[in-house]
């Protein structure tokens, strides 16, 4: 049985449907990410779980209790905000203890819990500092400790890393995940950063225009996207127009060049216009490994991206990006040279629009 359940959740502002018939079951201790572009409804859904927004229809059940109409301060839900939202007039210790003092816990209990949380976030030396005396990363750790201090049933994280610089973002996300695992707390993480969602989550909910596009593990979302939107939004993708040439054999043609796909196109007719997608890293040079699709190409451009080298190739009249891992001994082709690239038929995706 699920621990947190969102059933048929819809949120409307006037005529605008922001979240449309959202259904999700979350198990206890699970780390779920809501991933999507701005305005897709991910934050609104999170705010409905927190109680800051009321669903137009649908129910939210937490540990068997209907919390749909409960006020935010009646729910035991910890929330972390992008802007940290630490109380500027309180020290780190006072911020962490605030939720407990509101609950009228004893002074000893508050002190003990605050000390425990400060150790958890490694800010022992900063307990008596004010938020303005801390760095962004430290402030967000305090915010995490403050949310965890009240023993929340669910931890909600609303783009908590967006305001931080790249290095701190990576280290803090690992820290958040480690703490979440250690405490076994159920967490919902809202982000528009696919890398963040892929690296931290047990499952990802990809959202677009208020609708849930796909729910799955990071592996499933990346490798087996079910819609064009998911494939485009998560990772890089080459997408080109194609024509079905043999539905039974999975053959399609792109500007006269034939591709074979493992996707089921049996329901299509010969001559049907479709779009095929291939991830850049699924291409490789034909000499390295022979696969289903062996394609003549011209090297158009080479871009060095650090750990990856992106090679733009022209197959027929269409341009494709191909990614290969960088290494000091990598021999790259020359721009303008004729080469052969290959990809497996599983790599050629035919997705729902």
């Amino acid at each position, binding site marked *: 049985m699920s621990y947190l359940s969102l059933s048929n959740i819809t949120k409307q502002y006037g005529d605008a449907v922001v979240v449309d018939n959202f259904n999700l079951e979350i198990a206890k201790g699970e780390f779920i990410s809501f991933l999507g572009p701005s305005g897709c409804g991910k934050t609104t859904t999170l705010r409905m779980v927190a109680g800051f927004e009321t669903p137009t229809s649908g129910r939210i059940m937490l540990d068997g209790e209907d919390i749909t109409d409960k006020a935010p301060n009646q729910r035991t839900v910890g*929330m972390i905000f992008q*802007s940290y939202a630490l*109380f*500027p*007039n309180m020290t780190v210790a006072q911020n962490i203890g605030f939720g407990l003092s509101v609950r009228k816990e004893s002074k000893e209990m508050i002190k003990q819990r605050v000390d425990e949380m400060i150790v958890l976030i490694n800010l022992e030396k900063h307990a008596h500092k004010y938020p303005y005396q801390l760095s962004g990363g430290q402030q967000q750790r305090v915010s995490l400790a403050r949310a965890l201090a009240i023993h929340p049933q669910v931890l909600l994280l609303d783009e908590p890393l967006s305001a931080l610089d790249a290095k701190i973002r990576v280290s803090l996300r690992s820290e958040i995940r480690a703490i979440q695992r250690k405490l076994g707390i159920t967490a919902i993480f809202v982000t528009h950063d696919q890398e963040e969602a892929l690296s931290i989550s047990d499952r990802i909910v990809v959202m677009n225009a208020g609708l849930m596009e796909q729910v799955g593990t990071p592996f499933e979302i990346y490798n087996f996207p079910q819609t064009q939107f998911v494939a485009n939004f998560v990772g890089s993708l080459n997408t080109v127009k194609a024509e079905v040439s043999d539905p039974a054999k999975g053959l399609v043609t792109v500007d006269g060049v034939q591709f074979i796909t493992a996707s089921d196109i049996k329901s299509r007719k010969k001559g049907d216009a479709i779009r095929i997608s291939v991830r850049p890293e699924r291409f490789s040079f034909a000499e390295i490994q022979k696969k289903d699709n062996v394609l003549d190409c011209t090297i158009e451009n080479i871009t060095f991206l650090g750990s990856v080298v992106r090679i733009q190739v022209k197959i027929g009249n269409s341009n494709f990006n191909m990614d290969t891992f960088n290494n000091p001994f990598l021999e790259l082709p020359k721009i303008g040279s004729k080469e052969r690239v290959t990809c497996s038929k599983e790599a050629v995706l035919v997705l729902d629009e």
Partner: protein
Amino acid sequence: MNFASRLRKVPFWSWVWFILGALYFVLPLFATFEFSLTWDPANPLKAYQRAFEDRDFWETFLYSNILALATIIFSILLIVPTAYWIRLRLPEARRIVEFITLMPFVVPAIVLVFGLIRIYSSSFNVPFTDIQLMQPLTNFKAGTNILIVAGYMVLAMPYMYRSVDTGMRTVDIRTLTEAAQSLGASWYVIISQIILPNIRSALLSGALLTFAIVVGEVTLASFLGVDAFGPYLFLLGQHRAYEPAALSFVSFLLTWLAMGLLQLVSGGQGQAAGAH
């Protein structure tokens, strides 16, 4: 760093404007003070001695201070939740409220006081009957005090509302409120422990302006017939020359002292966002 290079670092025009502003502020004060010392060359402080010997000075000054304090407290009680709610839930009502708070600039105090007298000088009856619920507010001391504090609240509203609203703009009221709510805080806790401490400097400046308005106010106090400091100074000015100058100077210093104490007392705990 030598003096010349230091001097080059001084922003010249900043100093010019600062000195001009300071002169505009200090010169009249100095002239008043200087005039107050010229009554008796043998005893330059004669005007001050006479003024302080007058019981009416102390009584009216104390009374005006109490009125100012009451006005500040009730203004905070009215304006802080209003400005907070508008920022949080009713941003579309902001223009209307701002317009209302500007009314005291347009409607003179004399109109306000005649309105108050006209409405509150008749008794409150049960509608359509002669059964009296309350006698006219202008007929008894407490009623008049309520009227004058209410009137002062209206006069001070533009300053208090703007100070509070500006203070709230400097902190992210909405997110702080939501953070506190998610931690289980009630509205009372949010306002008293989160909002008020974080707009403390704004409240202080609003209180300072309110204090200055109330202590020197003449029109409302005269027409409502209360023995406040403003009418006392006004009357004294009509009949004497030196004492009003001395009292103006003293009342100015006392007002500053009072506000300094207020700042000292409220500035003692923690550091609020507005303070940085």
